[in-house]
């Protein structure tokens, strides 16, 4: 009897240390993950001189907002934010629409060539992005009939320096199609059949019946798309040359090149860059679908 009790308490003690070790590790990882955010916040909220006085203190002695004010004074941040919002918004909605349409077609219809197209899409995921960078630039540069180009794409600069040039290549989004497909697969087919009996056309069935069933997936993927578009750097850097059309990430990089010693405003800029993304993520998180992985890849 007593042996039994001691074994039980031993097990309980083991479980207790197990749980504490887990929490300790979680905390350690948490500190590592959060440290950069904490440090940029602290640096952005105190005078520069305080940041470079050794030994440096962990918290600001006096909280000031000058760094944020200076940042807005140094560059026309509102303009860049507006550009980024427009580009992010358009590419988000266009992507969701195109990917849902494609995913729905793969999930709900049989058509000649379906398997071939699906496999080509699947194979294309393995193409490293860098190989497509230069030729995509050429496609944008030589886009026919736009930006002074003739029908053969010669004579002008095509979609260079336009928002369309930034957004369009992102619409060839095979991942998105697979992502949406796996959610349409699990929607019931009989609703469409009933609606067809009633004479509803296929677009009505898609927009008013099925798209509503996958709203959590749309929100989840929308958040991922938002992050990607908001943070995208290299492509807008290449496509946009006119400062009036520049996006936030590139503008902040230029700012850093010019004022690399302006620590406070630079950290303020990082915080401003992160805030919308964090807000969207944390608000949208409760709609998150658990199934993050692309099980839709399995044919």
């Amino acid at each position: 009897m007593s042996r039994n009790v001691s074994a039980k308490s031993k097990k309980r003690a083991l479980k207790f240390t197990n749980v504490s070790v887990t929490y300790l590790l979680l905390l350690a990882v948490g500190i590592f993950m959060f440290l950069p955010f904490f440090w940029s916040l602290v640096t952005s909220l105190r005078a520069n001189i305080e940041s470079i006085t050794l030994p440096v203190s962990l918290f600001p002695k006096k909280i000031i907002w000058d760094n944020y004010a200076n940042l807005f004074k140094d560059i026309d941040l509102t303009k860049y934010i507006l550009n980024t919002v427009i580009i992010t918004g358009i590419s988000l909605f266009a992507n969701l629409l195109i990917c849902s349409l494609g995913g729905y077609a793969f999930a709900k219809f049989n058509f000649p060539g379906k398997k071939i197209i699906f496999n080509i899409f699947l194979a294309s995921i393995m193409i490293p992005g860098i190989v497509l960078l230069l030729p995509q630039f050429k496609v944008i540069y030589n886009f026919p009939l736009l930006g002074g180009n003739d029908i053969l794409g010669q004579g002008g600069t095509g979609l260079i320096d336009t928002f369309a040039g930034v957004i369009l290549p992102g619409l060839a989004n095979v991942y998105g199609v697979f992502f949406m497909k796996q959610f349409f697969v699990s929607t019931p087919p009989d609703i469409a059949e009933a609606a067809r009996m009633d004479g509803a056309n296929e677009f009505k069935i898609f927009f008013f019946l099925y798209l509503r069933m996958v709203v959590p997936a749309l929100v989840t993927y929308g958040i991922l798309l938002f992050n990607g578009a908001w943070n995208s750097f290299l492509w807008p850097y290449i496509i946009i040359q006119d400062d009036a059309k520049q996006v936030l990430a590139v503008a902040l990089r230029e700012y850093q090149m010019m004022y690399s010693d302006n620590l406070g405003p630079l950290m303020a800029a990082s915080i401003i860059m992160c805030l919308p993304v964090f807000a969207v993520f944390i608000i949208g998180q409760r709609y998150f679908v658990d199934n993050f992985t692309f099980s839709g890849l399995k044919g």
Partner: protein
Amino acid sequence: MQRRQYVTAYIFIAPVLLAFVIFIFIPLVMAVYLSFTKYNMAFVSGFVGFNNYKLAFTDTFFLKSLGNVLLFTLMYVPAILLCSLLVSVLLNRKLPGTVFFRTLFYLPAITSGVAASFVWMWLMNPHYGLFNQILERLGLPASLWLNGRFTALPSIALISVWSGIAGNMLIFLAALQGIPKELLEAADIDGCGGFRKFIFITVPILSPTFYFVGTMSIIGALQLFDLVFVTTQGGPEGVTMTPVMQIFKSAFLGSEKAGGLASAMSVILMLVIITVTFFTQNFTKLLRKRKKEAYIE
């Protein structure tokens, strides 16, 4: 009826198919074509045969950059696999507060690379950076971090692990949740400890996920760009120069826009990536075969 369905399906799939042809299929063919031409990023002015490839293979900077990313891959990929697996196992215990930690851990993944680079440069600043302050407090020698010849690449790897854990952690977490409960319960009944359960049940079931995450990480690591471009710009002494930076430089910076050479470099990098992934695939197959043989013996 059947015919009408085909038409509908094609209409639904048309936008993404069109975008795919214009922005993936045509560019892929073009990438190879451009690598055999003289191309100044505006006009193609004639074929040059294998000249661009000859130039690329005799360009010591490019070859060195390939070596750099291979070294980086060796540091980054094992680290990211281990860290994201560990974190996902911790989260999978589903203790109270897990949702909070999962959200916290996910923040680096949605942070702009440019913004994160600023902060890490500041944390790793040799004079006033927090890291050196901590090292000093602990009585350890200060490090040059991103500015040191030998520390720059490991520093980049550290930052990459920080931003890469979250995405991979979610993939591992999904796989962990797919492990049948009966299996773990049976192991419990047989008196298997947590560690043995992990080694003999979790790890084998996770091996396809391991392979997937590993391959994707290798493909990503070999194309390292944003982080290096903002923090070290390839320095010090070129130890963090990467092939993508070389491609970017040849094509877009400087007076001579060598698009043909840059295309050749990107095709070479693609071939390196394919080779490395192929090699790892066969390596894992070999390992599995060995393991099976060991069992039979």
